[in-house]
């Protein structure tokens, strides 16, 4: 089976006059198979959003440099003209953002925001688009969808808004959906519902999903494969069960350790990762994670760890369970 999305050596550097470039994404490669759910996990600032925006080509026109290859169905997205890209966005690939309220246009109705996409990409007339919009809202579990069509975004609850955004993103049955922390802005109880909904819809439509999150709990219930991102590079990639059963990278290990376990002994200390992203070393001459790593060796601060691919992808001098 050939990959739906192949990202190869993606680099994004933000440039500012008079300052050295700041590299946000530093040679990220991963692929997504049709219908697959792939996780992109890492703590704040590791480059998750920048990666997703680069794939959609939504980064600002100026002030950054993107290199590498992003292929969808073998087509190089980075080489498409703006017009060609606009034809594909929303139809072949679409995206859901973190904050459902600010992602909706406050001055037009939810219905118009759905029908806009339907008339744009599926050539529907107004009436057909409205009927389809009702179907879509119904499918994402919005009660009384006919009435909700004429509601403005601020009249919906947070969960409803995210449902509406999911309906919009899936309106044209894209084959790839990128969801950038779609539940972070929601109540914990609503989060689970939205994740269930995404999982169900993606399974029904065969849409592949790139799930971006800092929450391994989300990954555990959803993803087929997981990419763990640290400091703009993928440090570990494995099939979900493999990753949870035996995390190899100390960073992944730390992330897993910081999830409270319901079956653990009460009062057990959570193994949080010490330090912060600010302590990073440059990847060019070290392992960026070394200063925070419990397994760090001398070599970790002086040599860039080479990526190893055997069953899983790993970038570490001294993986967990090696010695």
């Amino acid at each position: 089976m050939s990959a739906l999305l192949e990202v190869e050596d993606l680099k994004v550097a933000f440039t500012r006059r008079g300052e050295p470039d700041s590299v946000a994404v530093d040679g990220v490669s991963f692929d997504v198979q049709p219908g697959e759910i792939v996780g992109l996990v890492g703590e704040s600032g590791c480059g998750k959003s920048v990666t997703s925006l680069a794939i959609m080509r939504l980064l600002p026109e100026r002030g950054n440099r993107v290199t590498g290859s992003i292929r969808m169905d073998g087509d190089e997205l980075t080489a498409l003209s703006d017009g060609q890209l606009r034809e594909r966005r929303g139809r072949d690939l679409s995206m859901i953002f973190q904050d459902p309220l600010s992602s909706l246009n406050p001055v037009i109705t939810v219905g118009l925001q759905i029908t806009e996409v339907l008339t744009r990409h599926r050539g529907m007339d107004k009436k057909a688009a409205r009927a389809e919009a009702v179907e879509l809202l119904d499918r994402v579990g919005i009660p009384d969808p006919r009435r909700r069509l004429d509601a403005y975004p601020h009249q919906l609850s947070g969960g409803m808004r995210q449902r509406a955004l999911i309906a919009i993103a899936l309106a044209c049955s894209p084959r790839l959906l990128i969801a950038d922390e779609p539940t972070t802005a929601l109540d914990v109880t609503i989060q689970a519902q939205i994740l269930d909904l995404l999982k169900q819809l993606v399974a029904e439509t065969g849409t592949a999903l790139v799930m971006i999150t800092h929450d391994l709990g989300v990954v555990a219930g959803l993803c087929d494969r997981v990419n763990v991102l640290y400091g703009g590079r993928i440090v570990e990639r494995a099939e979900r069960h493999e990753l949870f059963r035996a995390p190899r990278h100390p960073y992944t290990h730390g992330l897993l350790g910081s999830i409270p376990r319901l079956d653990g002994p009460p009062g057990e200390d959570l193994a949080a990762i010490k330090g912060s992203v600010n302590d990073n070393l440059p990847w060019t001459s070290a392992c960026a994670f070394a200063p925070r790593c419990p397994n760090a060796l001398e070599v970790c601060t002086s040599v860039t760890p080479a990526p190893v691919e055997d069953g899983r992808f790993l970038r570490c001098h001294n993986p967990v369970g090696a010695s």
Partner: protein
Amino acid sequence: MTSLLTRRRDKIDDLGGRSLTADALIRLRRNPVAIVGAVIVGLFVLVSIFAPLLAPHGPAEVFPELQRNLRPDSIPGALPGFPLGSDQNGRDFFSRLLLASRQTLFVGVFATLIGLVFGVLIGAIAGAFGGWVDTVLMRVTDVLLSIPSLLLAISIAALAARPSQTTVIIAVALVNVPIFARLLRGAMLAQRESDHVLAATSLGVRRGAIVVRHMLPNAMGPVIVQATLTLATSILDAAALSFLGLGDGDPARAEWGLMLANAQSYLDVRPALAFYPAIAIILVALGFTLLGEALREALDPKGRR
């Protein structure tokens, strides 16, 4: 258990709510400043609409019984049938004062509207395209903005061969254009960075639709507020032009600025001739300003609870 709880919550959050405009209107109604402004503006608009019915006499009508009593050292005050007495030419001062409100409203509204339309056009183009289009348009705008508005209006009005109501409107409208252009351009740029525009872009919405449907309506809030405030300054500017003799010379059309100018020579004789038009100008400008400021507060998302 959880699912039951969450489902309920989803529903509760979902009920109620009103449109943003309705929300703003409700907050406006609770604001005493807005009410004072609205009452002044409302009265002014009513008077100017019904002035021909309210005014007992025509604006250019000269009355012999008034003219007979005109002397260099005295202008007759209130007489039966002439509540505010005569003006310096033996016309009914009260009627002229009422009818002048029409000129003020007409000039103010058109100077503002024309300024708004062209300003919005320029600001939208600059904000939507960016790049050199933006740079060129904003340089010109900046130059115009750097000239004091009244001075600019006077210069433009003075270019006209024969001053008239139209030249006043054009002069004041031109002064207003850069104000609206810069304001909208800033709001458009902010919209360009906004999440919902990013989301619309991620859906492949066409560029024209993004500008017209997603950016422009969201950027118009401050422009509406400014329009209310600009009505006040337009009225003042227009009155100033008339005062300086750059306005409508037609005696059949009373105008507060011109009445003020003509009253100057009679300040010792009968100060009321200057006092009433001056108060009228100030009150109307104040009304629009109060309303505009209250509108700004009402539309400010930070004030929303």
